[in-house]
């Protein structure tokens, strides 16, 4: 089945077409045979008419004139001659075609005319064109011979080399096949749409499940098989959503409940007299706190329903800059964007905050570089830190990824910040990638499309 077409449409067309062509060929064969007979008979009638006309004409002429006239009529495929000996009449005359031919001759020439018809060659019978085709240039072997006596006793002999030519049927056959093909394709298309419509709904649903596990169930419509698939799919989605919600609940509750013990520990830590010990506790607690808050943020992202608005990205970036300035952190801005961006303002702020936080954590400062293209905005957050080994760039998006000791040991790793930022970027139809800059440091490139 390696040659079988891939799409259901293709397969259906193939099967339908093969079946129809086969049955059509069979019908064609049967029809053709029957038609040959009819044509043969009709042709025979015409030949009989022609022969009787010639006989009547010759009868009306003086014998001197006859040779001249015969010379005129003596043309393929009918040879006319006045000098042939009488024919031996064959014993059997019961061939339907020939008896009919003879009776037509008798009918036109008179019932008592002594007509002799002899078959010379096997008649073309249902062999399509080949037996009927006009043989150009010459008489060839006669198919049959007719001998009719004139009123004065002269025998006129007619040798018919072929039956009359028949109009070519190739064109008609091609036309029939073309109509057949068109019909099959149209019908297949309709049938395929009919059958596969619900299937492609199913496929779309499966594809979009990744974006939103809580999307409404798909309609359970279409052929029985597809309906069953749709039902199973809906049930599966429900189970998936349920188990995901369950996990989220557990994770959220856990993270949430951790806040109280962490708070207690922080308060206790604040009571410690030993400055050095307190600082160590503070660092560990800060790390735990970051995990907890980021987990909650991450869980919240999945169910975020903030509406999309037109956002002044420049104002967002500048307000971030002001916020970091208030915390004595340096953020530089390069470039400008002017067109408002369709985005979720709070989510977008969180996305950029995560990127700038990372940049400041690993470098001394962050630089936000903005560029606007016709259909998208490219925002790069650059730092002058140590960067990430090339092989681990993609892994930095994994939850709580820890790179080399130099990068993460003291600073708490990436946590979920980059994962959250990438989720937000993708939810906006954009993308977030990391790259080491040739001049040192890391570049987080955020690409956001302008509203489609």
């Amino acid at each position: 089945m390696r040659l079988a077409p891939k799409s259901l449409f293709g397969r259906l067309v193939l099967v339908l077409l093969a079946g129809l062509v086969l049955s059509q060929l069979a019908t064609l064969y049967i029809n053709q045979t029957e038609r040959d007979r009819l044509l043969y008979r009709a042709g025979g009638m015409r030949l009989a008419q022609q022969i009787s006309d010639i006989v009547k004409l010759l009868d009306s002429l003086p014998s001197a004139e006859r040779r001249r006239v015969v010379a005129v009529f003596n043309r393929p495929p009918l040879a006319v001659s006045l000098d042939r000996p009488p024919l031996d009449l064959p014993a059997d005359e019961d061939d339907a075609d020939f008896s009919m031919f003879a009776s037509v001759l008798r009918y036109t020439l008179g019932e008592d005319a002594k007509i002799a018809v002899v078959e010379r060659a096997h008649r073309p019978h249902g062999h399509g064109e080949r037996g009927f085709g006009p043989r150009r240039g010459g008489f060839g072997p006669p198919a049959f011979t007719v001998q009719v006596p004139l009123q004065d006793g002269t025998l006129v002999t007619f040798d018919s080399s072929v039956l009359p030519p028949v109009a070519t049927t190739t064109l008609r056959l091609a036309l029939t096949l073309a109509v057949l093909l068109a019909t099959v394709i149209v019908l297949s298309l309709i049938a395929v749409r009919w059958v596969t419509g619900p299937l492609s709904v199913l496929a779309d649903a499966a594809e979009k499940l990744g974006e939103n596990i809580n999307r409404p169930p798909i309609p359970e419509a279409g052929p029985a098989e597809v309906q069953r698939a749709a039902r199973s799919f809906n049930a599966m989605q429900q189970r998936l959503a349920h188990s995901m919600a369950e996990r989220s609940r557990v994770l959220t509750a856990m993270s949430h409940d951790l806040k109280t013990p962490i708070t207690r520990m922080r308060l206790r830590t604040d009571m410690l007299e030993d400055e050095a010990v307190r600082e160590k506790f503070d660092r560990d607690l800060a790390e735990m706190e970051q995990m907890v808050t980021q987990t909650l943020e991450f869980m919240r992202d999945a169910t975020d329903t903030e509406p999309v608005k037109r956002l002044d990205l420049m104002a967002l970036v500048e307000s971030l800059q002001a916020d970091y300035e208030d915390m004595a952190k340096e953020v530089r801005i390069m470039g400008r964007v002017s067109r408002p961006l369709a985005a979720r303002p709070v989510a977008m702020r969180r996305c950029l905050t995560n990127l700038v936080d990372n940049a400041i954590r690993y470098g001394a400062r962050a630089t936000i570089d903005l560029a606007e293209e016709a259909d998208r905005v490219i925002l790069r957050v650059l730092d002058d830190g140590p960067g990430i080994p090339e092989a681990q760039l993609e892994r930095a998006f994994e939850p709580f990824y820890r790179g080399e000791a130099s990068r993460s040991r003291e600073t708490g790793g990436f946590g979920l910040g980059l994962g959250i930022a990438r989720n937000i970027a993708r939810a906006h139809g954009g993308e977030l990638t990391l790259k080491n800059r040739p001049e040192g440091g890391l570049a987080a490139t955020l690409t956001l499309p302008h509203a489609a």
Partner: protein
Amino acid sequence: METSDHVLVVDDDAEIRRLLGDYLRKNGYRATTVGDGNAMWAALARGKVDLIVLDLMLPGQDGLSLCRKLRAESDTPVIMLTARGEETDRVVGLEMGADDYLAKPFSARELLARVKSVLRRYRALPMHLRADDATSIRFAGWTLDVRSRHLVSADGVVTPLSGAEFQLLRVLLSHPGQVLSRDQLMSFAKGRESEPFERTIDLRVSRLRQRLGDDGGEPRIIKTVRGQGYVLAAPVTMER
């Protein structure tokens, strides 16, 4: 310690309660700690309280409704403790009349800094950022979305603000037509690392004007009153 302000801590976690009480006392405050709303009312009835630290999640009546009730009766400053740390909770806390909020987990030093700043602010300008539950405030063609903390222009473009710009605008919008001194405005500014200087207030006002497109030769929304401070010179409509 020049202060012996009385701080009432309302939290259902006994350990947190004890630790906060100890820490506040160590830093020169009088501290009373209670575990729920009823005990809070009882403590308030017993004597003067200068500031309440109120947990959002409490058994029985929760912190938000307690805060709302409290606001109806007195103007004692409130710092809300929230465990959720989600923006909406913080803002809801502020709308219910809390003067500040602190997301768990927080450190005792952070709380102490907030207690100091809220008391100072309260004494400089005894008015709360109570916008009567407003979710948005309209002025001069702009809308301040209080929940999301951003401005929306007349044609619907969202213009984000920095935290300090939002605070400043919020204070100005709460007192339209009233001249606010730099000192008063500063008492609302919550620089986490450094205390704001007068220059910083001027810088924030100029940034805010730039955001509002009010930075021409003669500002019309936020006007400078020479030698006194700033005034919001536009009609303000609160929406909820």
